[in-house]
Structure formats: C-alpha cells, structure tokens
C-alpha cells in the first residue's frame, strides 16, 4: 500500500472518518426512530393508566393497536393537575398527560411544594376511578406507579408499578402481579377516619392491614422506596378531594 498505515496523518484521518461515519449513522438512526420511540412511551403510559383503572388487562392492551388505545383513552379519561395544596392548576400547556412524573419528581426533589401533581379520572358509566401517578427512588434508579382509587376517593382499587433498573428477580418484582395484587386482594385505604395514614411497605407481618403491605424479601431498599413514595404521594390529592385540610 502506498499509504503508511502507521503515520500520524493516516491515523488521525482514519479516526476522524470513523467517528464521522459512526456519528452520522447514529444521528440518522436516532432521528428516524425518535417519533416511534416517543409513541411507544406515550402508549405505555396510556396502557398503565387503563390497567390501573382496572378497565383492561395488560395482555389485552398489548394486543391492541396504539391508535385504538389512544381512542379509548380519549373517550374515558379526563385529566386534572393540582399543586401541593390541592388547588387545580390545569391550564393551556399544563396537562396531566404531558407531565413526565419521574422527571417532575427529579426536578422538584428538594422542594416538593412546587411540584405539579397530575391526576386522571376514569369514567365508564357508573364506574369512576381516580388514577394517581407517583414516582420515587428504588435501589438503582427511579420507580413509579399509577394507583387507582375508587369512587370514595380512599380505597385502592388498582395499582401498576414500574421501574427503570431494579434488580431482576428482586426489586424488579414490584412490577409483577404477585406484588401488585397485594394492594387489591384485601382492602387498603389511604385515610383512617380523617387521619392521613396512606399505605406503607413493611417487613415481618402486618400490624395495620388496611394501611400496610408486605415487603419483598431480598429487596429492602426497593420496598422502602415504594413505601416512601406511597406515604407522601397521596397527600396533595387528599387535599384536593377535601379529605385532608
């Protein structure tokens, strides 16, 4: 070969060309696929909300087209956004669906008083559910969930949790039915009379079954994270519902 492969000029040129080629490839791919990825994320959020409302099973929704889910969502869900005092602040540009609950949680970590609290209301004839999204910290990254309260705005009637990077087989179990069913297999309430107790995740047996859930063995930090998220998460909504002053 005429070119000296070990010369500095060749090395630098090669590096520059390689980086440009790889960079251009990835940039193109990312741009082309961005809309699809966004649509997937929105679609998943709609699925979670509908599942939490108990209207559909996740398996059913996975069979459906994204447009179909979007249509059901528009027909049955109305939205509202509250501030920390439970006052509605929904207006043009501030929609409950537009708020990424995890980003919102991170952005207002040090000052929960400026956080926006989105809520979704599911209505299907007589069946009304209030779906409350919330976020917190797990062991390795954020965790979040959608919790549906029944007509009395107090009893938990459905939950969906998810996480970014909890350990499979341990913390990741919060996203599985075995754990989520604990919230609905027996009555769990947020309010005890006019006292805000919320729901806590505890180890070693339940002392107050209406307000406690069994932790996941081997996943203490993730369980604590879910507990902490639930303990504080409902407060602004209870204020909005007029159940707490």
């Amino acid at each position, binding site marked *: 070969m005429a070119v000296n492969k070990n010369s500095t000029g060749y090395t630098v040129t*090669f590096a520059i060309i390689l980086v440009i080629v790889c960079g251009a490839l990835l940039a193109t791919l990312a741009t082309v696929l961005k809309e699809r990825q966004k649509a997937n994320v929105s679609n998943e959020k709609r699925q979670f909300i509908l599942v939490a409302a108990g209207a559909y099973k996740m398996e059913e929704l996975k069979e459906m087209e994204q447009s179909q889910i979007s249509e059901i969502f528009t027909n049955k869900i109305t939205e509202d956004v509250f501030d920390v005092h439970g006052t509605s602040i929904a207006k043009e540009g501030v929609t409950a669906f537009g708020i990424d609950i995890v980003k919102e949680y991170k952005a207002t970590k040090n000052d929960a008083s400026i956080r926006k609290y989105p809520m979704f209301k599911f209505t299907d004839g007589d069946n009304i559910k209030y779906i409350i999204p919330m976020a917190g910290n797990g062991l390795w990254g954020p965790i979040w969930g959608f919790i549906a309260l029944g007509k009395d705005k107090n009893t938990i009637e459905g939950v969906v949790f998810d996480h970014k990077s909890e350990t499979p087989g341990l913390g990741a179990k919060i996203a599985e039915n075995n754990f989520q069913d604990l919230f609905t297999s027996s009555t769990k309430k947020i309010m005890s009379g006019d006292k805000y107790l919320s729901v806590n995740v505890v180890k070693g047996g339940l002392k107050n079954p209406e307000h406690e859930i069994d932790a996941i063995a081997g996943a203490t930090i993730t369980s604590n994270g879910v507990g902490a998220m639930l303990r504080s998460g409902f407060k602004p909504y209870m204020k909005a519902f007029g159940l707490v002053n």
Partner: protein
Amino acid sequence: MSTTKESLFSKKNMKLIKDPLNDSNPVSIQVLGICSALAITIMLENAFVMSMSVLFVLIAANVVVSSIRNLIPDKIRIIVQLVIVATLVITVDLVLKAFVYEVSKQLSVFVGLIITNCIIMGRLEAFALANKPGPAFLDAIGNAFGYTWILLVVGFIREIFGSGSIWGVKIVPDSLLIENGGFYEHNGLMLLSPIALFLVASIIWVQRSKNRKLIEAN
C-alpha cells in the same frame, strides 16, 4: 492466509464454530464475559435475550472489523474496535426501543453493558483483526453460542432454585412454600450474583473432568 479458495464450511472453518462450544469456550475456558454471566442470569429469559443481543453485536462487529482490518492503524486499533462496538450496541438499543419496546424494557441497562463484554473485544482483537470476514463470521457464531449455552445453564439453575420457575412459568406451586404452610423455600442465594461464580466454576469442573486435554500439565 491461504491463497487457495476454500469453502466457507470447510473442516477448518467448522472448527471455528465447534471449538468455542467446548474446547475453547469463551466463558468456561477463556474466562471472558463473566461479568454479564453473573449479572443477568437470574431469569432464563433475560439470559436468552442477552445472548441473542451479544450474538448480533459479535457477528456484526467481527465482520465489520475483519472487513476493514487492513485499513485500521495499529496504534488506535482498540479504540477503533470500541467505537464500532459502541455504535452497534447503541443501534441495537435504538432499534429495540422503537420496534420491540417491551423487550427493550426487560433488558434495560444490560444492552449498554454489551459494550463491556470482554468476549466481543477479545474476539475482535484475537480473531477478526487477522482473518477474513467469512471465518470471522463463523468465529462470532461459535463464540456467541459458546457464551449462550453457559448462560442458559446458569440461568436455568438460578431461576428454578431461586424463583421456582422456568422462563417465568411457575414450576414450584406456591402452596408448597413454608409461608403458605408447606415445606419448601426458595434458595435466596440463587438470586445473588456470587452464586453464578460457583455455578460457572462447577461447569468448568465438569467440563475438565470429561475433557482431559483441557487439564494443564503441572
């Protein structure tokens, strides 16, 4: 490199596929890729999807690096390999997110970790840089499958004893568990990473006692 044209599936080339399954297995003999063998073998399904991602990245990287092996400057060859692997891994990640969102969520961080899988860099450095794309392709398949079977065995054992299920399907009924009045309890140790080391070590032990030529003379 031989100048005579030899078939892609000649005896010599088939050895490239067969050897890594046993005699030169990347995990049990060369002890590469151990990190991911520890991290993602709690569930069989994760182990499988991870293996398939590694298969794709390894094949693509091996073929690409092998095709441009005569152009790569020696001084920066590791960085060049790294850039190529990283590009491929991010491509996999982006495509998974756009087309099979569910699977991509399952793999989450593990996809990114393929970059750090020593098998890939190891094969690029040891084989692709010195061989034509055809054999490099076969070498990639062989090594990826050598990696796959170890992962699947470890994943199988960890899942059935750790969670009482196979591929997410319950095998041990809940009613047998002590907490439900039964006699059985899942082995929590199986869920922790160190157990994978013991399992891989056991595989190495069995393999060497069966295959005497692997035992070093000393």
